[in-house]
């Protein structure tokens, strides 16, 4: 058994930042990560085995033989599935978590994204709510994330973003061909195109080189370390303080409680499957929205018989990702220039203010679509196999562009994570059981976003376009969020505004779980900003009570 000031569970986006903040503040931190440490040298740029297309495996975890989940379909049928199944809603399990292999779009949510109920009212059948904090509260912490990890871009042409004190620290990468075509088209339509902000070096930054613009970015690790993840930024800083110990292949099974009923540490299984105990004054749960909920639900005690923080049955609820929707178009000229990462230009004109719709999405072009990611996206009328299909791809692969975006979801209570008492993982820990679907209004917004995207492609000169609309099934996946909602009222949330579990003041949930709503944007920069915000609170409190009880 070991003793620590703080134990942080999960070395992903949220956990990596908390570990660094607490270690540099002088706390003794144990950072436990169930996955392995991956280096850029491990990156094999395999089209069929990466975190986006995991047909032959998910190299950035989790290990598929050891980590099943249960997915329940709309008819109520439950299936045991592995990470390679889409229903698994995988993100990642390795040092860096999702940030090791992500696309690295670095969005701030808009001020209205924190005030969805105030802006739109509550659609029937949804748990839509305002955040207890505002954009202004997070602004300094967004900035901190942008500067400590390194974001490139230029927000000056986007009139919609919230107030910001500083510009981004690096200029954007030079535009791709798609960017040039779409920028011109959206301007003609009176929209406001600008370069997507990216956690990716466009110039040397933080001791790491700039992007070499390769073909395999999203879903892969970066060979030259130009992508900023927590694994090559804050985690090394945490370790260099000498105050933080990172243990990999260490899966936490339970948060333990002392004789007084207070949470006092964790039980975990180490790389050799030995059961270990660690005691800590502060416990930070940063396992990602599915696994954090699972861990809390698996941590039952006298004071929390339904699982830690789950006295009001809000843990695991409101699982949401994004209802990705948009359109694809074929152009008379080549639009493919093989210039990574691909995604480059965006508009935020449709995030809000769409008549009759409670929200919207940013719309942007895509990361380079590898051939194996393109074969399913053919227009209606082209058969999905045979000579026609083969020829369509041969004639149009280089002339096809997508424009799409992450439609903000209207949260629903029954989209949820539970633990399955009958199915256990390799270590005997009950696994996550996922069920529920999207709110009907989410699908309406998504359909509208698809039409907006199609109009852009038409204006850009597409000779043929077709829609890609989100389906009704549960979403979570790489943008998973919402399962431990942040709120002032313990009856309708799991944690308070500082990510502190209601009723367990020394336990924090710091990851996508706490999102009340998930913005019409990729979520990671908001997760990072919240991690800085929550760490700031923990550090201040630490100076006072040290979380050692009243």
């Amino acid at each position, binding site marked *: 058994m070991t003793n620590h000031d703080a134990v942080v569970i999960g070395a992903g986006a949220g956990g990596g930042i908390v570990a660094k903040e607490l270690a540099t503040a002088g706390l003794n931190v144990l950072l436990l990560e169930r996955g392995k440490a991956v280096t850029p040298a491990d990156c094999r740029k395999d*089209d069929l085995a990466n975190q986006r297309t995991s047909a*032959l*495996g998910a190299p950035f975890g989790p290990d598929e033989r050891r980590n099943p989940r249960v997915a329940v379909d709309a008819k109520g049928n439950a299936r045991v599935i592995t990470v390679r199944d889409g229903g698994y809603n995988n993100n990642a399990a390795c040092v860096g978590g999702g940030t090791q292999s992500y696309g690295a779009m670095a969005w701030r949510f808009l001020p209205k994204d924190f005030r969805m109920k105030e802006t739109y009212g509550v659609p029937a059948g949804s748990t839509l709510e305002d955040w207890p904090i505002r954009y202004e509260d997070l602004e300094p912490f967004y900035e901190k994330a942008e500067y400590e990890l390194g974001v490139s871009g230029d927000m000056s042409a986007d009139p919609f973003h919230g107030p910001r004190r500083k510009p981004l620290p690096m200029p954007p990468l030079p*535009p791709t061909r798609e960017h040039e075509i779409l920028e011109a088209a959206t301007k003609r339509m009176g929209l406001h195109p600008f370069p997507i902000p990216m956690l990716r070096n466009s110039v040397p930054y933080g001791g790491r080189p700039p992007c*070499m613009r390769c*073909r395999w970015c999203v879903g892969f690790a970066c060979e030259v370390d130009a992508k900023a993840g927590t694994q090559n930024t804050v985690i090394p800083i945490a370790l260099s303080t000498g105050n933080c110990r990172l243990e990999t292949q260490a899966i936490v099974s339970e948060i333990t409680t002392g004789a007084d009923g207070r949470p006092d540490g964790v039980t975990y299984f180490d790389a050799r499957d030995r059961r270990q105990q660690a005691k800590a004054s502060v416990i930070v749960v940063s396992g990602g929205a599915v696994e954090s909920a699972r861990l809390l639900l698996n941590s039952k005690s006298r004071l929390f018989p339904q699982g830690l923080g789950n006295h009001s049955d809000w843990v695991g609820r409101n699982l949401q990702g994004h209802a990705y929707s948009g359109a694809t178009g074929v152009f008379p000229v080549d639009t493919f220039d*093989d210039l990574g990462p691909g995604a480059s230009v965006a508009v935020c004109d449709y995030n809000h203010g769409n008549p009759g719709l409670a929200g919207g999405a940013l719309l942007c072009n895509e990361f380079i679509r590898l051939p194996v990611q393109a074969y399913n996206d053919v227009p209606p009328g082209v058969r999905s196999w045979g000579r026609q299909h*083969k020829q369509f791809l041969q004639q149009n692969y280089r002339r096809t562009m997508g424009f799409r975006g992450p439609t903000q979801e209207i949260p629903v209570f029954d989209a949820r994570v539970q633990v399955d008492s009958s199915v256990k993982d390799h270590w005997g820990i009950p696994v996550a059981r996922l069920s529920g679907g999207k709110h009907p209004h989410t699908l309406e917004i998504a359909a509208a976003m698809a039409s907006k995207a199609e109009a852009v492609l038409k204006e850009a000169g597409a000779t043929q376009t077709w829609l890609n609309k989100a389906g009704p099934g549960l979403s979570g996946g790489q943008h998973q969020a919402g399962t431990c909602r942040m709120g002032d009222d313990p009856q309708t949330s799991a944690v308070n505004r500082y990510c502190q579990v209601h009723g367990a003041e020394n336990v924090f949930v710091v990851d996508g779980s706490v999102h009340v709503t998930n913005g019409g944007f990729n979520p990671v920069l908001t997760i990072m900003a919240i991690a800085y915000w929550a760490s700031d609170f923990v550090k201040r409190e630490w100076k006072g009570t040290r979380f050692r009880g009243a």
Partner: protein
Amino acid sequence: MKRRDWIHGALLTGTLAAISGCGGTRARYRLFHEAEAGTLHALLQQLIPDDEIPGAPGANVMRFLDRQLARAYSGHLAAYRKGLEALNQSALLRHQAPFANLAFEQQELLVEGLEAGSLPPEPWGDLSQREFFRTVRTHTMQGYYGDPRHGGNVDAVSWRALGVPHPPVRGRDDYQFPKEPSKATAAAERTGP
């Protein structure tokens, strides 16, 4: 059309090996016996035909499947065996000949039925035709459009046919690319902010 007849003729006379370059490797399959391999080969020719450019058979998707059904796709092996047998039975029921021996158009109609789930149910038992079609189609596309290192897409033939440079010319050898501002950036600089 002419080309198709020619391939179909080749199939009938058993000279496919000569044009696809892979019929001769059948003996090397670890998982498929002769009849299964013949049916699967013909099914692949339907899904992504060899024509001017090698399709799934020519790009050795057979080898890809033979490898992956022992590894990542192993959970599907039983369905493959059952489905290939059922497809053959469906061919025998309709045409009194094995699937591999049918004319291309006859095979195509059967595959359309398979995709729609509308073949006579008898040989299929509890195996869903549509599910089987979806699985084999997905795996075939992955083998053909995926990375050559896994045994299919020989010589990156599909990538080159799509116009995707292989090996890539950007992002590795030419790390400093692009040195010059692109058209849009240059234009923006000229006109000022």
